[in-house]
């Protein structure tokens, strides 16, 4: 730390902005979620609890909106179901949507944190440093997706979320968060860095499929795919390419086309320019029946 480099490198404060010529090297972690496959079974969410030491807050606190699910499954009815003059039944089913931190490239949360507890990593992740956090909660206030979760109480100790036996289940690779810190989905960074260490020691980069996030690993319908976006071999790269979704655009060229597109890929709240790293694939609505 020195004043001079603070001044020199001011422009790089949030370095690797997507509009850079070469945003990330060698890694840019990204995800794509197929909503047509997703059945909303919650397995991913539970897996996340298991992997990331998420506290179970209990009924009362859940009622106060203090739940800590980094990955939440949202479900949506068609707009006209139950409405006046709309359909009486949701006879075309519901739509499920797993929502977690979108690891935005230009994350609204990063710029506002007074202590820089959340910032962009070189792999294009949106890191959250628990022990740096002072709990101003500005990040969550500015998050468009509201996917950051605050430790309103001291879950590990005073709240006794983990009775003696259960502490043995806690994942030693993940810090247990104490009172007053913000937390959120990390794309299972502990797994990523483990994989990177192995790869680095072997003088290569992480292969596709070598590392999985907990949610991806468990998903029974394989709706989630995760990998290194700049690795042309990776499934994620191929999917983004095939769907013509570009990381550094806030409006995709394909959507400008006449008569729309028949590609399913889209990103949520893209027009707010957070450049999210998660691409969703639209649910298919069957016309044959």
């Amino acid at each position: 730390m020195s004043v001079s480099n603070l001044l020199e490198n001011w422009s790089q404060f949030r370095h690797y902005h997507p509009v850079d010529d070469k945003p990330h090297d060698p890694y840019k972690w990204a995800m794509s979620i197929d909503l047509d496959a997703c059945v909303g079974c919650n397995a991913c969410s539970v897996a996340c609890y298991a992997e990331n030491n998420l506290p179970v807050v209990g009924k009362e606190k859940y009622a106060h909106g203090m739940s800590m699910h980094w990955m939440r499954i949202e479900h949506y009815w068609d707009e006209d179901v139950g409405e006046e003059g709309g359909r009486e039944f949701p006879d075309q089913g519901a739509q499920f949507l797993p929502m977690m931190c979108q690891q935005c490239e230009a994350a609204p949360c990063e710029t506002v944190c007074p202590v820089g507890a959340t910032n962009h990593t070189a792999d294009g992740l949106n890191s959250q440093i628990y022990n740096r956090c002072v709990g101003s909660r500005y990040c969550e206030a500015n998050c468009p997706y509201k996917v950051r979760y605050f430790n309103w109480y001291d879950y590990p100790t005073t709240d006794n979320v983990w009775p003696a036996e259960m502490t043995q289940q806690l994942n030693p690779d993940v810090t247990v968060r104490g009172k007053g810190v913000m937390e959120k989905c990390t794309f299972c960074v502990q797994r990523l860095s483990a994989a990177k260490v192995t790869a680095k020691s072997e003088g290569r980069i992480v292969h596709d499929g070598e590392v999985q996030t907990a949610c991806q690993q468990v998903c029974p319908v394989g709706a989630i795919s995760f990998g290194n976006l700049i690795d042309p071999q990776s499934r994620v790269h191929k999917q983004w390419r095939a769907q013509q979704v570009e990381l550094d655009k806030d409006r995709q060229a394909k959507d400008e086309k006449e008569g729309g597109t028949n590609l399913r890929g889209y990103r949520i709240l893209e027009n707010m320019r957070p450049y999210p790293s998660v691409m969703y694939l639209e649910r298919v609505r069957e016309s044959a029946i």
Partner: protein
Amino acid sequence: MMDSGFDRRDFLKVMGWSGAAVALSGCGNTSIEDGKETVVSYVEAADYVIPGIGVYYNSSCAQCDAGCSINGRVREGRVLKLEGNPASAINRGKMCGLGQAGVQHHYNPDRLREPLLRNGDKGETITWEKAYALIAEKLKGVSGEEIAFLSGGVSGHLKVLLGNYLASFGCKNHFVYEALAPGVVRAANKKAYGAEMPRYNINKAKVVLSFGADFIGAWVSPVHFSQQYAQFRKGVDGQRGVLIQVEPKMTLTGANADRWIPVRPGTEGILALGIINALGTATGDIAAAVKGYDKARVSKETGVPPGQIDKIAAILKLRSPSLVLAGGAAEGYAHGSQNAAAINLLNHVLGNVGKTVEAAAAVPFPQMVPAKGNTAALKSLNDGLAAGKYKVLFNYAANPVFTAPGALKFKDNLSKAGFKVAFAHYLDETALQADLVLPLNSALEDWGTQVPEYMAEGAQINILQPLMENLHPNTRGMGDILLALLKQRRPEEYKNYEDYYAYLRAAMLQNKVALGGNGKDDDSFWNETLTKGIIKLAGTTTALSGKAGVAGLKLPAPTENDEQYPLQLIPSVNISLRDGRHSNQPWLQESPDPLTTIVWDSWVEIHPKKAAELGIVEGDIVEVTSRTGSIKTQAYLFPGIHPDAISIPLGQGHEALGRYAKGYGVNPFQILDAVFDRETGELAMYETRVKVNKTGQRVIVVKDESAAGAKQIREKIAGRVSSDNVDLSKEV
């Protein structure tokens, strides 16, 4: 990762490590504290055990009967997380939330730690020796007829031992009870296909017409079916599969269907016949049988618009092969067998049998195949108890006091049994009634074998092995207990088995050849088996034999409206709580119900239209009254349910089972009428009629869904595209 059971046991010891020690002071301690914490190092270490690096052991999931294979991550002797074993054909490395929560079953703070003997209404701790002696004493001079053994579904060597034990005093009263078993469907399948559980190829079907089979959520083998479903969606030769779900209350599968059809409860069979009629391809006596079921009538009786029936018939005709499934919603009536038969008939008419319905392989060891639980068993046990037939009652892996329909008065009858022994993990409702409670190892501490009822491809035997040393020193595996009990009866036969592990190893090595270990020496075969966690066998396959018969197929007209009890009660199966045996696992309690996002509680689903009639709004505490009893819980307005029905999820409302389960929600089992299927004698779950009254209280429903009420507003959040515009088969 080679590992032989014996020395591995030492390395399952729990160790504390600098980098690894669990620290709850996550963000608190900000300074370096030398010399405070202690590092406990190994005495002897195997070279594959490296502190800070996880070791993975294969075992099997015991959270439900699907028989998924798991891969447990163990560090410093603590099992941290369960992941799927990719080698298994059933779950192919995937898992469900329920399975994930297995670790919470293992680490649950409310587990039993000591054998307990009833003393008044308290239980006092005794030693195992004393417990065994007590059992021996109680069994003295008791004839086999006077002994009953109630258990959940058991399979593998445990079942063998159990059988031998009961045989040792000529007892035939082994009641296998599962509250949510597809008993009727099994019987119907047996008739229609000649196999109780054929193999369904959802992935090969172009259309799946499911009558209330929640195969994605909680039916038979959900994880496996979910994977098939994923392929089915991608489509067979470029055509995305179409899923049509017929059921009065929307299940998770219904929520994912392309067309969800709310049918009047109990008329599924009629609709099936109606579709056969509409297809018009049937011939002979089938045609004759369905002649009466013209569109007008079917539509009138089922409440499904005629156009809809045509559409279904059309697409079924157009796209072949298809698959028709009969599930919980169809079988749960007094005429459940008839419903199921009619639905299975549809498969014959469509020529799916042999294509999407295939013969499943069976394990070549008949004594190991699962003893399938059902509810008929409960009834006969209950009658026996009522008659005071039994002097000694054993109970293992079943909780009838909680799950038996209230009308059976099971709890009262249970007290008539002389001496009640419960082998249990927790003090659940039934264990609380027992005179002697013996604490069991968790599935992650225990040895065993497991044979899944539903075989995905070929046959397989799953291995259960400890992922860590016993959490509580004084719990024992069911196998060990049975062995000990057997030694009381037949000492000489079992004396050379030091413990269940030894028995298991010996038993497996005996059939080494049959188990595909030909030419391997014992140790390497055994180690390989443990390492794999699965034994795959070709298995024996008997071709499907069933006939498309309509003999004795007659469906009652739908029950006309009952003035006193106007509504049909649908006890729905929550994907993670199921029959409530896992309600004490906090992750499951806090993972929202997919369709309502309600947590930690029960609710009554009412269609908004009906609710408006009754003047009920969300959060009203309503009293649901049946002929048997009544329960009070919060109302939730839910569009995905037939207006003439209400639905309450099962699994909640425990009066015991520990801090995470006790006192949350209500137990709909309590108000179920004792109606049974006419053919199989299975409990007809959906035959209870109820009325609903407001109590005047109102609460805020604890759910994840927001004030926006599961609607997308403004921005596109969950996108939708018509199937005309996309070709999934071309996608990456």
